């Protein structure tokens, strides 16, 4: 992927436009994310990926759940849906099935997608539903004040684990892999180029695609654990990350201060839900099978 380059004559004009702005609802800026939060960084990467994939933006829809990352839908200048907690994926499923021409991106947080939304995640992966799921994992429930999430590593202090988390944390890439996702990658908000590249790859890949992005939550996670601010988290990501493409996802668990395995772990071809549906129906019904026209054109 070529990094997007902007050629402008001689000098930057007096009122320059940040290339990310056409992708944002500028009438809703400034956003609500804290100083040093990485969600905005992931949005930059997503913007680059959309630009480079030359996607028809009228056909891209973003579906979010509830949480800090869930607010992405509200800021994206696309057909966007801010749904209920944990249910972005089933909403996105219905949206995609009604109009398969849409590129449906689910953009949500770790708690939303894997606690309350966990059941929906595994079934959509199982079905290989053609959805692109971007999970910003800040290891906490940030919006509500930093409670323990299924991803919060052991020993971390949180609002609901004031004496330290003791539950084992989910390994999201392993979960996605085991559930059948066609594409599984993990990056951090330090890895902006690689993240943008991965996002571009999933925009061009059929099937259930999952990217986990580790991101700082300075206000709650970092502060409560005396881990500094967002920049300290970013430096930690830089220092502790090891790129291991193709690593067995079971070996990619995260701990409080240990190594962060990043990279693309799974990239396989499986028939997606539509292909399976069509194949089974035509085998059973032959000529009698009517192509689904779910979207009612005149109604």
């Amino acid at each position, binding site marked *: 992927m070529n990094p997007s380059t902007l050629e402008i004559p001689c000098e930057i004009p007096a009122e320059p436009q940040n290339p990310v702005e056409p992708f944002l609802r500028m009438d809703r800026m400034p956003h609500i994310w804290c100083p040093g939060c990485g969600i905005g960084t992931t949005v930059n990467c997503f913007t680059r990926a959309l630009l480079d994939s030359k996607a028809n933006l009228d056909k891209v829809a973003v579906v979010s759940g509830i949480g800090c990352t869930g607010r992405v839908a509200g800021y994206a200048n696309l057909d966007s849906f801010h*749904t209920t907690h944990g*249910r972005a994926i*089933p*909403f996105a499923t*219905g949206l995609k099935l*009604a109009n398969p021409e849409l590129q449906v991106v689910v953009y949500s947080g770790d708690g939303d997608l894997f606690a309350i939304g966990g059941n929906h995640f595994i079934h959509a992966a199982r079905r290989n539903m053609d959805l692109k799921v971007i999970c910003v994992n800040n290891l906490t429930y940030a919006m509500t004040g930093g409670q323990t999430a299924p991803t919060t590593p052991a020993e971390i202090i949180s609002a609901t684990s004031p004496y330290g988390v003791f539950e084992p944390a989910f390994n999201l890439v392993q979960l996605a892999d085991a559930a059948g996702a066609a594409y599984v990658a993990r990056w951090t908000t330090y890895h902006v180029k690689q993240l943008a590249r991965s996002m571009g790859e999933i925009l061009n890949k059929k099937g259930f695609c999952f990217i986990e992005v580790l991101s700082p939550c300075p206000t709650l996670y970092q502060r409560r654990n005396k881990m500094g601010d967002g920049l300290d988290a970013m430096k930690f990501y830089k220092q502790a990350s090891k790129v291991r493409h193709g690593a067995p996802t079971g070996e990619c668990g995260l701990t409080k201060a240990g190594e962060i395995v990043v990279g693309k772990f799974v990239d396989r071809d499986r028939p997606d839900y539509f292909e399976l549906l069509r194949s089974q129906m035509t085998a059973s019904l032959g000529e009698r099978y009517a192509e689904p026209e*779910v*979207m*009612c054109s005149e109604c």
Partner: protein
Amino acid sequence: MHADPKGVLTGVHFIDGDHACCEGTLAAGARFAAGYPITPSTEVVERFASRIPTVGGIFIQMEDELAASIAIQGAVWGGAKAFTVTSGPGFSLMMEHIGYAAMTETPCVFVNVQRGGPSTGLPTLPAQADMMQARWGSHGDYGIIALCPNSPQECFDLTITGFNLSEEFRVPVMLMLDECVGHMTEKVVIPEADRIAVTPRRYTQRVPGDFRLFEPRADLVPDMVRAGEGYRFHVTGLTHDERGYPSMNVDTQDRSVRRLLDKLKPLSDSRAIFEAENLDDAEVVVVSYGITSRVAQRAIQLARARGVRAGKFRIISAWPFPERHIRDLAGRVKAFVVPELNLGQMVHEVARAAEGKAKVIPVSHAGGSVHNPEAIVKAIVEAAR
């Protein structure tokens, strides 16, 4: 607009209410359903799963009712007419998403084939104990439309009405069947497609940039849109302004949430759907709905034979409650008798609308079977005293 013939099984059928409801969805133009198995509703989606691949659409059995109730809304915003089907326990699970549909003004249909409750209750036996829940089950202030068929024929007809109303008012519609109506087999006549009126989705005529997804027309209902057409619209469950942007302040809350209720007001008045008989000389009016109205019909006959001037007010649109009609009647009858397969739900609405101008007598039944007509006759006779 008339029904698309692809979905209309024209003819004279001998089918049960669940099956008739499914045919109603197809005739209404539904081409997407998401569901989860739950007795006594499952046949609706089983039939849909069997019919839709040759009609042209999709059924997906989701992993739970939470998923089903929001998948249909995703499909609606993708441009489909969509519905889901459930019974008590699943209805409870769907409550958050009914509220989401109301808040985002997503036209869709929820079918509840009511069974004995609470909790697991009586999976295979009838009740009408979800009526209040249909109206109030989700949190916050919002309104819905609820329709109560009392026969397999009405399961067909009112399903179409339900879809039409949901498009007209941009609101989720509850089809409140019960196990008896759902599992009773009767003659169902499905006419030719060109004799079935279907309300088209009120897509906006405005161009992108000039369109606001939550800006109401004069009838207080906003136009609709679907994803993929360049409108770059935003839908959120947060309190939002006319643009659909979160606007969490007192003024927006008042304006937007009030409108969710105000837009449905015609249904409590001129647009209420009901069946009235023998009201002109009535001294006692039996107010009933669903399967109980069939028993009530018999009870009214028996009461008349015993000299009581009993009249029938059969509620078909239960929510918004047809309060103007009850209020008008209350001024000129002695009493309302309200038999229900529950321990008193719609009777409270009747009492509220009657404003003390007539007695209101419940004939409650905890569910599991239908009333014995004599129980209703007894109440009618006593009310007339």
